Each structure stands twice: as C-alpha cells, then as structure tokens.
C-alpha cells in the first residue's frame, strides 16, 4: 500500500468533458465517475429528474500521487470558480495489485 491523495470533485454534469480534457493535459488519465448525482449548494438544488443529466451533478474520484496534487488543484480551481461545485481532498492508501 502506498499513500495517495483522494480527490472528490462534484461538478455539474455539463462540465464532464471539460474536466476530462483538463485532467488529460496534466497527464491524469485515471479516474472514476459517478453520474446522476444530486445535490444542493449555493447555486440551489441540482436534480436531473425528467430532463436528465444536464441538470445533475457528476462526481469524479481521482487517486493521485502526492506530488501530482498541486497541478490537479490548479487545474480544477478555475472550473470550480466559474461554475461552482465541491472539491474535497483527503489521504488514502492505494492497495497495490
């Protein structure tokens, strides 16, 4: 097991491609995505209901090395700034296989 940073990013689903592209630019190509995520925050209720994904959130979970964290943060911050969302960072251990 090695120590990693666990990044949990909740953003509007319409930004999905934007986030993926920005991550690829800094060579992050591994992530897990949760679709159809609901939520409530400063920008009100997010709830896809009948109109589908476009009014929902998605969550990215990204495990990265400690030394990648800074560039990930710098990459995500402008997106969060423009459209809101949540980004939590915590410590975790990656089970080697």
């Amino acid at each position, binding site marked *: 097991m090695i120590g990693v940073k666990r990044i949990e990013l909740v953003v*509007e689903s*319409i930004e999905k491609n934007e986030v993926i592209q920005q991550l690829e630019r800094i060579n992050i190509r591994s992530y897990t995505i949760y679709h159809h995520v609901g939520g409530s925050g400063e*920008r*009100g209720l997010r709830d*896809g*209901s*009948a*109109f*589908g994904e*476009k*009014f929902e959130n998605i969550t990215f979970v990204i495990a990265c090395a400690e030394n990648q964290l800074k560039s990930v943060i710098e990459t995500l911050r402008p997106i969060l700034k*423009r*459209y809101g969302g949540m980004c939590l960072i915590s410590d975790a251990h990656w089970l080697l296989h």
Partner: protein
Amino acid sequence: MQLQSLLMPSVLFFLLGMLAQLVRSDLKMPPELVKSLTVYLLIGIGIHGGQQLSHASFGEAVPALMVALGLGVIVPVIAYQLIWRLSQLDKLNAVAIAAHYGSVSAGTFLTAIAFLESLNIDYEKYPVMMLAVMESPAILIGLYLANNVRNSINAETKGSVSQRWSMLHESLTNGSIVLLLGSMLIGDVVPEKNLQSVLPFFQQMFMGVLSLFLLAMGIEAGKKLSDFKKTGLFLISFGILVPLLLGAIGVTLGRELLGYSIGGSVLVGVLAASASYIAVPPAMRIAIPEANPSLYLTLSLGITFPFNVVLGIPIYLYFAQQL
C-alpha cells in the same frame, strides 16, 4: 367550438401531473422514460413532417424558413429589451431568459397539433420545418447578446472565440435537432410502401405517448410552479404576457405574411410563443454561467409552458379566427 371538445386527453394528463404535485403526491415518472418519450415524439413528428414534405417542393418552403429564422433572431432581442427595461434583473439574466423565448417547445407544438386535430382543423405542413429550424438560432443570439453585455461591463468571463465555435457547433448538432431533421429526411426519402411498416409504432401510438409525456411535463411544471413565489410577480406576468404578445405576432405572420390557414397560423403562433426548456437551458448554463438557472427554468417550464398548453393555444386559435 363546443367547450366539451376542449377536453383533450393530453391536456388533462398534463393537468393531472400538475395536480399530483400540488397535493404533494409521490407520483414520479422514471427519468429515462421521459427521455425515451422525447426521443419517440421527435422521431414521430419528424417522420410525419417528412412524409408530408415529400409531396412538396423545396421552393414553397422558403418563406416559412425565412419567417422561422426571423423569429429566432428577433424574438430574443425583443424579449431581452422587455425584461431588462421592465424588471430589476441584471442584463445577463435578461439575456439568458430571452434566449429561451427565441427557441421553441416541441411539447407545446405537439399539443397544438393534437388540439387542431381534435377540432378537425387543417394546418399547413411547413410549421414542422420551422420547428426544426427554430431550435438553434436563439442560442447563438443569446451568446452574441451576452458577449455584448460583457464587453460593455468589461466582465472577466468574456466568451472566447473557441467558446463561440463550440456553442455554434453545439446549437447545430443538438440531439433534438439531429433527431428531428434526420427523421424528416427519412420520412421524406423512404418510399411510402417501406414506411408503412414503422407507422403503426410512430403514428398510431403518437397521441397516447404524447399524453404520457405531458403527464411527465405536468409533474415537472408543478415542481417548478411551486418555486414561483421566489420568482416574483413581474416574472410571472412576463411568463404569461410575453407568450400572448409573441403568439399574436406569430399568428399574424402566419396569416398575413405566409398566407396560411387558421390552423397553420395557430402553429406559427405557438412557435413564436413557446419557450424552450430542453435545448436552451443547458446551453445558457454553459454560455452564461453568471445567470441563475432557476429563473429561466421556472419561467419557461413552470409558467409559460403550462400557460400555453392549457390556455394559450385556444387563445391563439380564437385570435386566428378573428383575423
């Protein structure tokens, strides 16, 4: 026109959906069902439109297309001026709302067709093409207006050139446009004989599926409606009076400029009066992140849509009959 003939299943299902929200029932439609119904309806309307167009010449369609483009460009500008001058909203919110009225609501359009058919009123075949054409331009106008506003206030979040291109691309390749135009083409080129095999599904089921769809829309509209205390009185009146104004303009254009029958003019009125709640909201969310989505969603889905479906359409018909 007897009052009883106004009792259409589709409109009543819409009201049932709203009522269910009103009494706080847990009635829900599966989200993927609603999306499926939308796909079905767009194809159904497309095939039907295409079938009719196969008997028409393209030349005859040109005036209709011009009017459609004109409405798509001018309506957002008018709406923007009205909102910004009369309300206390800032300019970017005004632009975002205005763009919704420049586009169209296929659900309202279909309800109008069901309405005309239940009264045995004929209508021209071109408005369905106008529907397809009117989905996009308002999004672009919205983007254009927003950039103007931002320039004037020196905003940071100025749309980049690449963003403009991507909005243009998105507004032209929007799923509902592709489905509608594609199905029209299919309905147009496939020989009648071959088309027969799919018509039991896409045509005989159509009105029933529409009822199911409007039930779902009623639920959604009901949810939004309950937000309308927050929206304020100005916006509520806006959501009713603007469609009335635009509907009158549309009916007049249909009757006088295009020379359509009463039925066809009503459809042009509906195109003008209805506000998009599927294609435009996400586009505005991307293009104008500063604007508050709950304002434009409540207006288009919670106020204008129910108004048009229940009262607007009969009013536009009445108006067309007086012209």
